[in-house]
């Protein structure tokens, strides 16, 4: 039963973070939430008995992609105030 609860919560959290990554107003926050999504995916892979993917997801999905996107968002949207409306928020 606890396992079901855990799985249910995890899936719920996955969907919520995915939704937040897509629809949150602030792009920076969206990327941070996306990193959280990646970490949750890593946990999900552990639950699916796939430790290899969990490792890869943590390193690549959450880690590298996250850093790449964070770096990008800071350059695409964040630096100059004039672009905030175009870059940060759609």
């Amino acid at each position, binding site marked *: 039963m606890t396992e079901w609860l855990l799985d249910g919560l995890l899936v719920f959290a996955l969907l919520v973070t995915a939704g937040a990554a897509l629809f949150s107003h602030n792009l920076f926050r969206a*990327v941070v939430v996306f990193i959280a999504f990646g970490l949750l995916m890593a946990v999900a892979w552990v639950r699916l008995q796939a430790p290899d993917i969990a490792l890869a997801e943590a390193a690549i999905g959450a880690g590298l992609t996250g850093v790449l996107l964070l770096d990008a968002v800071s350059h695409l949207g964040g630096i100059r105030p004039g672009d905030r409306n175009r870059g940060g928020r759609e």
Partner: protein
Amino acid sequence: MTASLLYALAGAVLFGMGLYGLLRLPHLLRKLLAFNIMGSGVFLVMVGLPQHRGGADPIPQALVLTGIVVAIAATALAVVLMRRYYHLSGMTTLEEPSPEQRPGGRR
């Protein structure tokens, strides 16, 4: 109903959400996030569905590993293109530039 199936079904929902994002969100970075979320959804279906019947299946797991590497390659390439595009056009969407924006890059 097993936990694997639950994850597979979650994958289906993630795919739909990602698809919406990819189609409707204008900002390129959002599109990229949406692509990655879609990808995660596909990977969940890929592993979750076969494992529903009998324990861990290494073959889809290996496929998903390959898929993740392809996805990161695509993402990284997209980021490079995007930043270069932004540098040259000052735009973060794929809309055709309006005439006053057309000449040259800014920054």
